[in-house]
């Protein structure tokens, strides 16, 4: 049978974001999977160079609306390392708390999207209803439902509202009960297991070889988590478990995410109960950051987030570099797509929890041997950004 090319995207009901997946199918089977990213490229790293460190913080909040706190925390940890600032303990707890609440909301969001992709819309509505509990807490703590803007250089912008901790604990209890229900649903109810088991298989060796990260790697049995490997903020004080699963398919990814939500609820509860008193931000923070560079890692809901910041002693970052988790997971996803069925493509793409607004970037490959200088003019940047004819 002749091979047929099927484009998915840039506008497609299964995709939340504009990206193009070009699948070559032979009958029902995918034999070749290609993708074109870049529709969401906005030129963040370049525009960070024209902003002060604090303005860049709020710019980086808008790299991705779902893991906004991850990006800002990762960036701010690097900036504070360059500046040599030691932030108050309470600020660290609040950052951790917001980070974990964000993980809960992101994973519940993913669970809903995955339910939607496999035609299980009840799960979509259920998990998005439960997600509102977390968004309510986040709104009370930070003032906004998404893009919280709670981080600032030297601490956090707001304290936890007084006398509200009991309410939050109560909401977390309800949420934990609901998540136990989802875990039960995954293990005992046949629908999810029947639809997702064995689909889009990624072996442990392949996951390591292709540098998968986050829940995608953990579902293939790779125990990788920055919170364990290199604890930042207060993760070294908090007892929690690393969730892994050995099946390597989408079912495993679902289970890992649901169980991670339960772990995150425990961490959030620990943070609320053991919040140390005291200041929540430094009073004086230098406007100019001394010369230096730093590199920081953060376990975002989707995997390892990496930021690099370099300062030349001025008010603006000399260079701010972002490497988001979806970038790493793309290779493994595209590799595993080969050999899957075309009907599994939407859920397979969704199973890595893609976030293309984090991913899209311009990369220039420089040939060192040619000895040519690799400078690029500003107007050429927008030419590259356009990416040619589609």
């Amino acid at each position, binding site marked *: 049978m002749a091979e047929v090319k099927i484009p998915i995207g*840039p*506008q*497609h*009901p299964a995709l*939340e*974001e*504009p990206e193009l997946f070009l699948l070559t199918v032979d009958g029902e089977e995918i034999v070749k999977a290609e993708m074109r990213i*870049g*529709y*969401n*490229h*906005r*030129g*963040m790293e*370049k*525009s960070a160079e024209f902003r002060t460190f604090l303005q860049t913080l*709020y*710019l980086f909040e*808008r*790299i*991705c*609306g*779902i893991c*906004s706190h991850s990006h800002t925390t990762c960036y701010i940890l690097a900036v504070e390392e360059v500046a040599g600032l030691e932030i108050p303990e309470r600020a660290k707890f609040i950052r951790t708390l917001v980070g974990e609440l964000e993980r809960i909301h992101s994973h519940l*969001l993913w669970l*809903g999207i995955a339910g939607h992709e496999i035609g299980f819309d009840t799960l*979509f*509505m259920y998990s*998005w*209803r439960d*997600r*509102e509990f977390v*968004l309510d807490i986040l709104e009370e703590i930070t003032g*906004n*439902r*998404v*893009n919280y803007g709670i981080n600032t250089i030297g601490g956090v912008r707001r304290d936890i509202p007084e006398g509200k901790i009991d309410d939050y604990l109560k909401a977390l209890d309800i949420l934990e009960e609901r998540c136990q229900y989802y875990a039960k649903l995954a293990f005992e109810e046949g629908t999810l297991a029947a639809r997702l088991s064995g689909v889009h298989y990624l072996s442990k060796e392949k996951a390591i070889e292709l540098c998968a990260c986050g829940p995608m790697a953990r579902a293939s049995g790779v125990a990788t988590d920055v919170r364990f490997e290199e604890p930042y903020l207060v993760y070294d004080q908090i007892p929690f478990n690393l969730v892994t699963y050995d099946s390597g398919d989408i079912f495993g990814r679902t289970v890992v995410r649901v169980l991670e939500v339960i772990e995150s609820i425990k961490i959030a509860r620990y943070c609320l109960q053991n919040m140390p008193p005291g200041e929540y931000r430094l009073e004086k923070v230098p406007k100019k950051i001394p010369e230096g560079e730093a590199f920081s890692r953060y376990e975002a809901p989707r995997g390892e987030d990496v930021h690099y910041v370099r300062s030349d002693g001025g008010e603006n970052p000399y260079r701010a570099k972002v490497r988001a988790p979806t970038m790493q997971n793309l290779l493994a996803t595209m590799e595993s797509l080969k050999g899957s069925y075309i009907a599994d493509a939407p859920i397979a793409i969704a199973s890595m929890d893609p*976030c293309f*607004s984090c991913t899209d970037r311009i990369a220039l490959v420089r040939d060192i041997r040619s000895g040519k200088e690799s400078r690029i003019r*500003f107007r050429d*940047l*927008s030419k590259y*950004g*356009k*990416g040619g004819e*589609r």
Partner: protein
Amino acid sequence: MFQSLVNWARVKSPWILHWNTGACNACDIEVLAALTPRFDVERFGILLQGTPRHADVIVCTGPVTRQVKDRLIRVYNQTPDPKFVVAVGTCACSGGVFRGNYNVLGGIDQVIPVDAYIPGCAARPDAIIDGVVKLLAKLQGKAG
């Protein structure tokens, strides 16, 4: 007589197409949140559609990037008349924090005509519902 019937149907069941033109996902999840039980825009007859050919209203989020521009025009042309465009979020209204970046053209109205603007970063579901209801009122006004 026939036209008033069509208008009545249009106001009672506007089908929307959600189209991310380079947003950071924040407005997108708020648009989706507006469809789910807490906010539930389906009570106004609003239904999310997958293809522009079935849609009456295009809900755009995010600034227009250079790469997405041609697709946006194509999606707009594929939508049958009469069509309405709602720009959700500050970026979609004006370009927001991304204004002036080398790969961003600005708001949605730089490329296609916009009927309703819903500002906010990110626009709350309440605001989105308010904007959509106002758009419906406008439609009703048009219907006479």
